[in-house]
């Protein structure tokens, strides 16, 4: 084991160590003390992982099984930020709902570790295992409120469809291995570059399908709304962004790092997926009555937008700078912030837990009626987030879409850009409903006393929403450095 090996393993080790510690502490301390502690252990793990990801050396480690580069750092950062924000709000929200917090945090951290490993993995086996770690942990997280039938259903659906997709992913990896004779990404491109075989292509197709499932691209998206809706909101928030970030990281790594020679094949494929995903996601979100479900569909739609960047990269492969994947990664980054904030807002806007009741997250549009009066700041933040998701300046969502469409236009995929634009208008229709509900409708029959008697919402959720909104604005007004980071991440090959 060299220093590089340790450096590469360190982020995952931090997370996993924290996970084990969280469970372990529970064994030795009374619950009243251990539960408070686990939260902080988790934060420690996340911060440690973040430090390790940025502080320790890079390069290929473990004979090419793991790699630490700008791409892995970028995605890991997004994942860890998501984990952190989701973690902050989880304790207060899930504790009262009789969730085993140590195990919850352990699974959350494990899942994050899986994601971090996924983007660092440099061979197919590690990649597959990482996918499975994050998936298995998420299956359980979805069903972690065991007494809630909807949570059960969500978990079961996710599990069945997830393992089904894993089958495809695995088959794709097998075929690529069959075509190249190696599972290591290093050298794979060289072997595939000379000539393309049908097996390799089938492998690419299956692989793309497998990751398309993970990121929720149509037609592999049908689990997304059901699972997101049924899962506990912090989990939904976490997986809606973190899985997507990790999935995109892996897609970028495998498509651009492993299969650049096949760009002519997967480029149009990804383009078609992007188009279908944008249409399905946006139209699906349009008729929802539940904001949570709407956000789920919207996450599908945003997958579609981000895929534009990859499609553009495919169309441009071999010529020009990797603006497409940079745009996709940038978008995933800002998407992480926006969507996380939006889901967390649902928790903040809901009825907080009291000793008498476990609380309830806001779910439907009507739940948000008149919120601007009760919680003006939260409403303002949510408005920023919604506007950003709709892609209106001066928010990060706008700049993200801008770079995506720019890459598409640059790659002569203006059609995708135009479709994206049309769908953005559709999306504005449902994002606006949130703003409309908060600002323009009145809460039903709430008297002064009721309003006064209402318990204070969880401040940590409010803080998380505020941070998200702030970052959304900041990334929109000063997107330069994060875009540069994304470009560096997309440039991982050139290093």
């Amino acid at each position, binding site marked *: 084991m060299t220093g590089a090996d340790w450096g590469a393993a360190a982020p995952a080790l931090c997370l*996993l160590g924290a996970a084990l510690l969280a469970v372990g502490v529970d064994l030795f301390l009374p619950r009243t003390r251990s539960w408070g502690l686990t939260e902080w252990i988790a934060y420690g793990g996340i911060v440690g992982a973040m430090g390790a990801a940025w502080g320790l050396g890079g390069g290929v480690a473990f004979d090419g099984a793991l790699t630490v580069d700008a791409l892995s750092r970028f995605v890991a950062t997004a994942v860890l930020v998501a984990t952190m924000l989701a973690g902050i709000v989880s304790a207060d929200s899930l504790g009262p709902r009789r969730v*085993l917090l140590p195990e919850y945090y352990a699974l959350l951290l494990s899942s994050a570790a899986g994601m971090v490993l996924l983007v660092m993995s440099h061979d197919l086996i*590690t990649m597959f*295992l990482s996918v499975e770690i994050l998936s298995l942990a998420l299956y*359980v997280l979805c069903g972690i409120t065991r007494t809630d039938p909807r949570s059960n259903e969500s978990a079961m659906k996710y599990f069945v469809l997830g393992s089904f997709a894993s089958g495809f992913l695995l088959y794709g990896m097998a075929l690529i291995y069959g075509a190249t004779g190696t599972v290591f990404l290093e050298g794979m491109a060289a072997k595939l570059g000379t000539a393309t075989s*049908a097996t390799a292509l089938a492998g690419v197709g299956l692989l793309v399908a497998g990751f398309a499932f993970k990121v929720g691209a149509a037609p592999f998206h049908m689990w997304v709304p059901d699972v997101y809706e049924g899962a506990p909101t912090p989990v939904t928030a976490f997986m809606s962004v973190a899985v997507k970030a990790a999935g995109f990281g892996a897609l970028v790594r495998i498509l651009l790092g492993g299969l650049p020679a096949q760009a002519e094949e997967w480029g149009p494929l990804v383009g078609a997926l992007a188009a279908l995903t944008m249409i399905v996601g946006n139209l699906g979100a349009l008729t929802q009555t539940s904001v949570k479900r709407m956000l789920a569909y919207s996450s599908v739609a945003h997958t579609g937008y981000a895929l534009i960047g990859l499609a553009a990269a495919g169309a441009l492969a071999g010529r020009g700078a990797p603006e497409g994947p940079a745009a996709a990664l940038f978008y995933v980054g800002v998407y992480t912030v926006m969507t996380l904030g939006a889901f967390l807002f649902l928790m903040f806007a809901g009825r907080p837990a009291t000793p008498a009741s476990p609380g309830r997250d806001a779910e439907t549009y009507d739940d948000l009626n008149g919120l601007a009066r009760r919680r003006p700041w939260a409403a303002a933040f949510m408005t920023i987030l919604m506007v950003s998701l709709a892609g209106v300046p001066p928010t990060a969502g706008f700049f993200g879409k801008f770079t995506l469409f720019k890459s598409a236009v640059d790659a002569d995929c203006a059609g995708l850009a135009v479709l994206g634009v049309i769908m953005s208008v559709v999306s504005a229709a449902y994002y606006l409903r949130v703003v409309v509900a908060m600002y323009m409708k009145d809460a039903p029959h709430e008297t002064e006393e009721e309003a006064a008697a209402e318990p204070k919402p969880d401040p940590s959720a409010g803080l998380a929403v505020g941070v998200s909104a702030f970052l959304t604005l900041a990334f929109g007004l000063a997107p330069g450095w994060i875009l540069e980071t994304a470009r560096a991440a997309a440039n991982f090959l050139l290093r």
Partner: protein
Amino acid sequence: MADALKAVAADVLADPVFAVCALVAVGAAALMVTRRNPVYGALWLMQCFLAVAVIFLKLHAPFLAAIHVLVYTGAILVLFLFVIMLLNLQPRELGEEHSRPAKGLAIAVCGALALLLAASFLKAGPDGAPFRDVKPVTVTVGASRLPISADDWGGVEHVGSELFNRFIVPFEIVSVLIVVAIFGAVVLAKRKL
């Protein structure tokens, strides 16, 4: 493609062990997915796994064949049977089945999938020709250049040295995976909080 298909057919006929095992595997699999009662399904699945294990042997993977039987039939299927018994499903709790048209659609989709995969194998190579058989050769493995003889190809020693050298990371990670699975199972199955 027709030529390639003919060649495969000839190849299969020339190899009766494979032919029988393949037939058993596919037949058992087909029966597994069509049995209404999951107990029968599990048994047919076991049958299928056993046939596959034989095929592993034919592919010079004795170690894999062994643990395949151990893990799949010994662990996984037993777990299935445990759960089936635990749930103790009454016939009406087995649930309904999909309608015939739905199943027809499923057959169509999966048939298409199978055909497309098959086509890609028949046109496998870069030149569009199928894969050809290769004889095993002497290999060396690992950082320490541990030599392995051709006869031991795919044996315990061979697999083990690969596993602990080049694939140490996946090996460690799979342990993490299993820990996660344990956490998960515990969280989900714990009776009380």
